[in-house]
């Protein structure tokens, strides 16, 4: 496979949008899927489908093996220490809710502090807000600097003896800033504070190595990693999974169920209640294979090249302000235009087949801080090229023509 013509692996690019080739710049929202992933989904349903872990017939055996093989695949890809540290969830949102609920129930008391940042996606704020409501915990926000970064000193400043959790994004879906996770983890370890990383944007673009990062929890959405909808991953250190109470109750996660008491299975089963997304899990293996074939480093290099090119190009347009200027940045370019609202930009760009997103991107706290309710966002996947940026730029010129600015 060659990154230069990788678009051909993605069937979505065969169609036209408004008569124009699709320029998809909305991957931070959700990535498109390679044919191998789509095919695996359908042929799994066509020839191997059965519920996993519960029956002993041949189909069930096959399905169970494929499912658990996928867990191994994820474990290897993340370089987790043990396969029991990989929990399949509905998405990064559920992964974070699981931790907030189970960790919160056991370890958060009134007055305890949860440290997040102004960059956080609602998924990494609302679940902690629930603990604020239920338990009387406090939420502290590490400030974003003028470059759209959160500095390690800012986090250091806010840590104190009441801090019971640090929950931060790996890569901001607005400013593109890559946060200094390893430094945060080192800091937190000294004080015995667990660190949850919202890896939703990190995982599709960066090399991620759980043992190297050293964080306690890492949340992933598979649909942003070229995988199917409705599937996420929670990586968590085994010591936590052993300590935390289960999140949802149902089939599979139990050990013994009596009328007056219930005991639970060990991890990862304890956290996987009910019928799992077998087909999606199996198909996600193919998404990892796709990434591995290209090499995540090559993907990153390619995306960075396109991103740099995009930033340079947009900077030349003097109606445009780019949001954030982080030293370490990944695959996201948020911008605003003088006199044209992001919503209007998105609609006009779409006419030219250019798909971007407009809004607060589920980061209202950050947008409040920036003093603008909405921005336009072009976000990259492996299939984007400099040519896409050129088309973006032309389409932006069209906005200016229509709005006469």
């Amino acid at each position, binding site marked *: 496979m060659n990154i230069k013509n990788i678009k051909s692996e993605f069937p979505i690019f065969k169609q036209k949008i408004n008569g124009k080739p699709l320029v998809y710049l909305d991957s931070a929202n959700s990535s498109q899927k390679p044919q191998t992933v789509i095919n695996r989904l359908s042929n799994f349903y066509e020839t191997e489908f059965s519920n996993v872990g519960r029956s002993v017939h041949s189909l069930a055996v096959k399905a169970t093996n494929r499912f658990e093989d996928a867990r191994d695949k994820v474990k290897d890809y993340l370089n987790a220490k043990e396969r029991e540290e990989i929990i399949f969830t509905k998405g990064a949102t559920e992964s974070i809710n699981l931790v907030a609920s189970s960790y919160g129930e056991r370890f958060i008391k009134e007055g305890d502090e949860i440290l997040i940042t102004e960059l956080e996606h609602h998924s990494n704020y609302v679940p902690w807000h629930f603990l604020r409501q239920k338990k009387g915990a406090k939420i502290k926000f590490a400030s974003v600097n003028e470059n759209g970064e959160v500095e390690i000193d800012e986090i250091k400043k806010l840590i104190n003896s009441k801090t019971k959790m640090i929950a931060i994004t790996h890569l901001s879906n607005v400013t593109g800033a890559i946060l200094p996770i390893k430094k945060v983890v080192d800091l937190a370890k000294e004080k015995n504070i667990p660190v949850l990383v919202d890896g939703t944007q990190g995982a599709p673009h960066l090399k991620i190595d759980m043992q190297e990062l050293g964080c306690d929890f890492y949340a992933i959405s598979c649909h942003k990693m070229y995988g199917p909808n409705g599937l996420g991953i929670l990586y968590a250190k085994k010591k936590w999974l052993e300590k935390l109470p289960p999140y949802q109750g149902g089939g599979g996660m139990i050990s013994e169920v009596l009328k007056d008491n219930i005991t639970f299975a060990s991890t990862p089963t304890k956290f996987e209640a009910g019928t799992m997304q077998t087909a999606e899990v199996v198909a996600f293996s193919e998404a990892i294979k796709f990434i591995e074939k290209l090499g995540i480093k090559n993907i990153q290099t390619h995306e960075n090249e396109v991103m740099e090119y995009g930033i340079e190009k947009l900077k030349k347009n003097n109606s445009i302000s780019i949001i954030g200027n982080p030293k370490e940045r990944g695959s996201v370019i948020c911008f605003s235009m003088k006199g044209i*609202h*992001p*919503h*209007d930009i998105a609609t*006009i760009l779409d006419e030219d087949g250019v798909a971007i997103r407009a*809004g*607060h991107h589920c980061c*209202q706290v950050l947008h409040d801080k920036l003093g603008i*309710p909405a921005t336009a966002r072009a976000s990259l996947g492996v299939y984007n090229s400099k040519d896409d940026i050129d088309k973006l730029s032309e389409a932006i010129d069209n906005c200016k023509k*229509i709005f006469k600015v």
Partner: protein
Amino acid sequence: MDLKELYQEIILDHAKNPRNKGKCNGYNHDAKAHNPLCGDKVHIYAKLDQDKNLSGLSFEGEGCAISLASASILTDTLKGRDLQFSKKVTDDFLSMLKNKSKITLNSLSEDQVTTISSLSGVQQFPMRIKCATMAWHTLLAALEKKSKL
């Protein structure tokens, strides 16, 4: 789909120079709304006098050209008109976007009908319909509330 229909001269004019912005004097009805997905906001202020006339009507808000133009056109069209009539125009406007019906109210001037109808281009852009209707729904909400006086 046709961008020229969507961003007509009239709309761009209202978006860039919105009429009746701010709080109108002596308003006794108001309501706020926002679209959590994009951050658009609108706040409608209305002064309903004893004769059931909207003697004051204005708005505050931020958002895209469509939502600003829509709020501006709303206030411009209905300011000074009576309650009954204003509700009728609002219904007709919402129905224009929902059912692609035409605006044909007798007691609106031809100009006004043209102005309101300029927003009909939004029909072709389903994700933008909320932008165009938010102010009008908010007006109804404001009028339904008890008077502040």
